[in-house]
């Protein structure tokens, strides 16, 4: 029994250590964002809100932030539509090649992002379409579809099809059944999927760099600013914004889908 207690204590210590390992770098971003000096020198000599003001006044940073919001919204809308449609098709119909659909949906996120980025930018270059915001949205939407799909299909599998059958037995047409039965059941799962899609798009950089052309999203702005030795704190302020705008949507999404638990990144 003592060895069991010892084992549990060791496991608890190991878990605590790994959690510290996972959270310390995030805590550091917050500290540097409020550090006065703006360099990596540790420990910071004094704290201030100076860099917050500098960040707000920085037009390049602000433009990048707004571009990221626009891109994430665009990608989310496409992913929400296509992911929900695919989930409805797979969950409520039996057809040849059904397994292939879920496999192909997972593909863009299972393969290294650099392959997706290269493939998309090469295609845009080959058929002569310009790179830029639209190209980024297309790229992001492609790997965000699966996030909505996973959430919606998890909900559909928990919602009995008999409710929809009952609705049509009572004389509702397929639109009314969808509008009054299916959609209300799916709403929170769709919202959760959309929040995840937004979060993933907002901080995506690997694919984005290949298709952005000259456009700067927030992650690209951060990536291009990391060599500025005396503006470390400014980059950390931007990083803090990036963290909050992905963590908050994901946290809400976990609350919305406690029944299905479909929040992986796959």
């Amino acid at each position, binding site marked *: 029994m003592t*060895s069991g207690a010892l084992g549990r204590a060791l*496991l*608890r210590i*190991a*878990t605590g250590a*790994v*959690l510290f*390992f*996972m*959270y*310390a*770098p*995030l805590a*550091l*971003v917050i500290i540097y964002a409020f550090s006065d000096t703006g*360099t*990596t*020198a*540790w420990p910071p000599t004094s704290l201030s809100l100076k860099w917050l003001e500098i960040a707000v006044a920085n037009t390049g940073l602000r433009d990048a932030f707004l571009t990221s919001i626009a891109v994430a919204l665009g990608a989310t809308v*496409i992913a929400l539509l*296509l992911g929900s*449609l*695919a989930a409805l*098709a797979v969950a409520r*119909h039996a057809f040849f090649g059904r397994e292939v*659909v879920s496999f*192909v*949906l997972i*593909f863009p996120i*299972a*393969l*290294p992002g*650099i*392959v997706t980025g*290269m*493939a*998309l930018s*090469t*295609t845009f270059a*080959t058929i002569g379409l310009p790179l830029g915001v639209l190209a980024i949205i297309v790229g992001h939407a*492609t790997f965000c*579809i699966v996030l909505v799909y996973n959430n919606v299909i998890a909900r559909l599998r928990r919602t009995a099809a008999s409710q929809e059958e009952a609705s049509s037995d009572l*004389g509702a*047409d*397929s*639109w009314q059944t969808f509008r009054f039965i299916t959609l209300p059941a799916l709403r929170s799962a769709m919202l959760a999927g959309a929040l995840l899609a937004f*979060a993933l798009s907002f*901080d995506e950089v*690997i694919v984005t760099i290949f298709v952005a052309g000259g456009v700067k999203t927030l992650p690209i702005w*951060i*990536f291009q600013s990391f060599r500025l030795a005396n503006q*470390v704190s400014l980059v950390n302020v931007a*990083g803090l914004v*990036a*963290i909050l705008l*992905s*963590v908050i949507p994901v946290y809400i999404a*976990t609350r919305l889908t406690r029944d299905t638990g479909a929040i992986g*990144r*796959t």
Partner: protein
Amino acid sequence: MTTGARATPTDPTPAPTGSARRRVAAALQRRPRLRLGLLLAGPAGWLVIAYLGSLAVLFLNAGWSRDPFTGLVHREWTLANFGQLVTNPIYRTVALRTVGMAIAVTVTCALLSFPVAYYMARVASPRVRGLLVVAVLMPLWSSYLIKAYSWRQILSNDGVLNWALSPLGIHGPGLNEVGLWLVLTYLWLPYMILPVFAGLERIPTSLLEASADLGGRGLMTFRRVTLPLVFPALVAGSIFTFSLTLGDYIAPSLITTTQFIGNVILANFGVPNLPLAAALSLVPLVIVTIYLLIARRLGAFEAL
């Protein structure tokens, strides 16, 4: 199907409202195939055209060549780029280095994830378990780039790690391959913890009790019962740690000056030599595909 529907009493004799929407809805009701087609057209079209189509174009480009004098791309398919990948020792070194890093990161993640996942699945109360799942999810979803950037600050000469280690008289790994190994382990660790946790949670307690009843001590039960049962979940997690390391070029460029596959692809991308970059990007594609096929044989797909 239609004759069957005709026989039922619900079949409407001219719809009372008769609006266009009702007629479309009724038509869809009677034709599930049409409904399916409309549902699938968008997503399938998008993925086939935008994604699979792009991969095909990438493959096509990998066979083209670029004239070193005019800079124009010859659209004539050859194996020259692939030959260069095999014969040029630089590309071989870079590929082997990247795969080596992917293996090192995967093994480290597997070792680190186990105590955490075991604690979550087998020791923690349901309430603590729920909190820990969220605690592991949040770092996974927070901005990948800023996590890598934060590590650049931690590992830098005047950074927090050297400051914390200086009383002990030792130095941190610094901004080099060892540092990168640490950073990549950090970045992909949650991707390993979550499937291993799910795998451990699925093992019925009765099996562990049976092993103990038959005289299996803690370590024996772990080695002979727990580990084989959780192995597919470990492989499932390793798909992410392996694939993500293989395709990464941001963390390597933030932490080291060493070249990995991703950096070489990016360096050749666009003006320098797009066909060569395309051929290079097929290297991680092929390696990950082989890895996925092996993983499927090991039962990892059921554990995802």
